[in-house]
């Protein structure tokens, strides 16, 4: 089976992936920079190209609440949002995860107000990191397309049944036109069977979903949810493996670039991985043994892969595109530090926060991070985090 190469805006590609996945229910509220995804899906439904219920709602809180209902009756369900929209969904994010409803969401990552910003960083998803969803990051349009299709298969697997977020950087991914391979309908149908829920709301067999949990049972319920999210790891690898066999495009929890013999590594998430690759090439040309780690899977957090990736490293430079205000600084870096705390051998870890609210990060900034980190590596006392490109 071959797939067609096209030039397409990444938002449209995400919507086309949802169509190919034969989503049956979509509820979403338009918000920049997610708007084109939802607009295109509403057109596809209105034009009869996608046989789905499209529910236009008055808020994101309602969008995800509608999704909870459609998923509970057994429909393949999709939504998409960004930034403030995710915050307005916050309450329901936890509800659908606890109810194990396999909703798929595209999250066009954008900064949080105030000050109001429509531009890209990772503040939105980091504020929802403990919501219990599978959370995956993408670097380019092809990855958005592929991961959107894979997300349905991961979420709906009877061994998983956990909602899934596909993160794509707002504007830097959502609004750019990229060349990508579209899968055919036959290919996606072969890959992704119809959703077959374990439990569904149906008048013929009454059940209760979302009942309350007394103190005697709440802790057990939370433990079972946590184990389920951790156990989804094996299924995620299986699904990516299957997609790789079908398309030749392989995905891993941690992607690596020029890590052979690297003493220093940069770690990024999302679309800045491609810029960092350029910086790594330049630094390698200057004789610095640097490589790049690109963390794709954020939840479940791939502890073993992270520990494995640190072998041979003297310095790890972590870029965070969100700030834990008044706290440790960068959420990604703090989790990586925590994952390595028990290791006797671990690299010096330098935390950088940059690229907030749409501030561009050219390759020079990544080079600067590596140069600074090499200077800092023998210092006894480090700052919680350093910044790049912030004036003053």
């Amino acid at each position: 089976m071959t797939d067609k190469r096209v030039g397409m805006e990444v938002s449209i590609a995400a919507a086309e992936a949802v169509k190919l996945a034969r989503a049956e229910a979509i509820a979403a509220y338009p918000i920049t920079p997610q708007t084109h995804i939802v607009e295109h899906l509403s057109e596809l439904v209105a034009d009869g190209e996608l046989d789905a219920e499209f529910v236009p709602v008055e808020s994101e809180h309602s969008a995800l609440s509608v999704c909870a209902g459609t998923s509970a009756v057994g429909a393949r369900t999709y939504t998409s949002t960004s930034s403030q929209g995710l915050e307005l969904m916050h309450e329901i994010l936890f509800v659908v995860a606890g109810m194990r409803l396999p909703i798929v969401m595209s999250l066009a990552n954008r900064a949080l107000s105030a000050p109001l910003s429509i531009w890209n960083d990772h503040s939105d998803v980091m504020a929802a990191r403990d919501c219990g969803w599978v959370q995956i990051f993408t670097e380019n349009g092809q990855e958005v397309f592929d991961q959107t299709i894979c997300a349905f298969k991961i979420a709906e697997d009877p061994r998983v049944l956990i909602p899934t977020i596909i993160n794509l950087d707002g504007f830097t991914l959502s609004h750019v036109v990229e060349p990508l391979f579209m899968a055919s309908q036959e290919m996606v149908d072969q890959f992704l069977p119809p959703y077959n829920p374990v439990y569904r709301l149906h008048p013929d067999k009454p059940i209760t979903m979302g009942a309350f949990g007394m103190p005697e049972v709440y802790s057990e319920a939370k433990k079972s949810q946590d184990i389920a999210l951790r156990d989804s790891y094996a299924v995620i690898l299986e699904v990516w493996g299957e997609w790789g066999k079908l398309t030749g495009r392989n995905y891993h929890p941690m992607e690596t670039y020029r890590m052979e013999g690297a003493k220093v590594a940069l770690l990024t998430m999302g679309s800045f991985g491609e810029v960092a690759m350029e910086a790594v090439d330049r630094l390698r040309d200057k004789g610095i043994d640097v490589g790049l780690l690109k963390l794709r899977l954020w939840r479940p957090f791939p502890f073993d892969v992270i520990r494995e990736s640190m072998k041979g490293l003297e310095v790890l430079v972590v870029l965070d595109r969100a700030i834990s205000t008044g706290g440790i600084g960068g959420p990604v870096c703090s989790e990586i530090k925590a994952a390595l705390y028990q290791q006797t051998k671990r690299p010096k870890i330098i935390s950088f926060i940059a690229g907030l609210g749409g501030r561009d990060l050219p390759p020079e900034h990544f080079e600067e991070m590596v140069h600074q980190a090499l200077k800092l590596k023998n210092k006894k006392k480090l700052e919680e985090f350093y910044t790049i490109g912030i004036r003053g």
Partner: protein
Amino acid sequence: MAKPIDQFTWKDIPLGCVVVEAGNAHEYKTGDWKSQRPVVDTSKCIKCGVCWVFCPDAAIYKNEEGYFLANLDYCKGCGICARECWTGCIKMVEEEK
């Protein structure tokens, strides 16, 4: 229910905490929440059933003689029945050990 809920291990929790048996709330006896209980003076009761209508917990039942009484396994002692009773035949009394 196969076993009491406080004996469920985390592995026993149904997916998403779904309750698969309909109407099993009656197995959960909530009557021990109350600090007062209704006592009916049947000599004044006219069997009108207004207490049965108002009880928010559906804890009032009709006995064989036609009097309306509270099932103390579920009555939470709110006192609405005593307040609404037309003849004042229901008195709330303190629960004592």
